[in-house]
């Protein structure tokens, strides 16, 4: 039974091994509505593993994840409903048109009138004219906008972003930042995984640094990014 006002994300003791490699080693995370957590760390620190665990795409070796008060388990697929995922991969089928991709997503989320919602979502991303085109015929920036339309189609309360700025030019990056700023209202939350703090610094309300599968730093966003950057470099060097 969900509690009265549960955190949007509550992860406890998350651990994950890949054979002998320990990707996550007991990570706790609480994210409330309106918060944006920026997760940084060098390659292999466990950032993507953490994100995939929060999305329910990866089964942790130990620990639990609850989204909006509901534990993510195999037996409760509906617990994944509040989650949206945006990564540097579009999650779109290349052989389906943008419209078909979004209608499929709308059907899987059991949304009312998926074609109308799909049209509106594409229009919101400036892709109304490309609705009948296939993703592979679009530029990288347009593909990312189509991926955003898909990720936001069901109006997720929690948006998980895995390196969302990868491959985007400056204009497309700014556009994405603006869109994320608009998306993150009081009722929603975001976890953004990236290598470069500057890409999403202004969006973040909290910053975490993962090193060897553990939090090496986790606090409200420091006011001075340059100062934080020096701290981060020291942490990463060990």
């Amino acid at each position, binding site marked *: 039974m969900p509690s009265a006002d549960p955190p949007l994300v509550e992860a406890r003791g998350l651990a994950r091994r890949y054979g002998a490699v320990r990707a996550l080693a007991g990570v706790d995370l609480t994210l409330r509505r309106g918060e944006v957590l920026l997760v940084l760390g060098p390659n292999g620190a466990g950032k993507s593993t953490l994100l995939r665990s929060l999305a329910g*795409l990866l089964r942790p070796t130990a620990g639990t994840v609850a989204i909006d008060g509901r534990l993510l388990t195999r037996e409760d*697929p509906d617990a994944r*409903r509040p989650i949206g995922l945006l990564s540097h991969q*579009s*999650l*779109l*089928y290349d052989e389906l048109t943008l419209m*078909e991709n979004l209608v499929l997503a709308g059907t899987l*989320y059991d949304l009312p009138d998926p074609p109308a919602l799909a049209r509106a979502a594409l229009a919101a991303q400036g892709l109304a004219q490309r609705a009948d085109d296939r993703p592979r015929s679009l530029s990288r920036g347009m593909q990312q906008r189509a991926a955003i339309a898909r990720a936001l189609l069901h109006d997720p309360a929690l948006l998980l972003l895995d390196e969302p700025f990868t491959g985007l030019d400056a204009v497309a990056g700014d556009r994405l930042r603006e869109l994320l700023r608009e998306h993150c209202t009081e009722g929603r939350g975001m976890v953004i995984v990236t290598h470069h703090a500057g890409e999403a610094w202004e969006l973040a309300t909290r910053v975490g640094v993962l090193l060897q599968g553990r939090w090496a730093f986790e606090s409200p966003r420091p006011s001075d990014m340059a100062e934080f950057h020096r701290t981060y470099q020291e942490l990463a060097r060990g």
Partner: protein
Amino acid sequence: MGRMLRLVFAIAGKDIRLELRTRTSLLSAAVFAALMLVVFNFARDPTAVATLDLAPSVLWVTVSFASVVAMNRAFTVERENAAFDGLLLAPVSRELLYVGKYLANLAFVLVVEAITLPLFVLFFNLDLGGAFPPLVLTLLLATAGFVAVGTLFSAMVAKTRFAELMLPILLLPFMVPPLIYAVKVTVPLLARRPLSEVIPGLNFLAVYDVVFLTLAILLFPAVVDE
């Protein structure tokens, strides 16, 4: 129930639409089946081995290998743009996801068989007559079973580097029991012997379907959850 059916058909419909756009699996499997039948037709010596002795084995060898070709693509299409993550992320149970993929695979293999069967009859100059309906039933029952296993293994090997090589290695041993019984049923059917002779074989195929479809549905979540 209505929602479950809608989800299953959305997933199966998506796979069928993808296949109709590319025709990769169907075309390669159908060409493969036709080539096998041509080779068997010209390689056999009708004076040495009677057609009725050889035909059932040829039919099932052709169907089994063509099915593996058709099923190979079931999960490799999901790797493009990490599209499978989109399915796994949706509030849809893994079991329904399996059933959707299974139905699409079943449709592909049945289409390949629908192309193979007339070619088989033509090349072997067979008069099926009254044997046609029970032969179709045999094809349906055998196919339903090995497609159940094939869909599970296809998901299992999709993330490996040699998915197209691994699928037949894993699947063929599990195809042996239904293939043996399918051949055992086809022999008396083509020889126009009484239907009572084929009932035990058909029963075995039906039991195989129920057992392996149930096992595959139960095991699929563990296979796709990393």
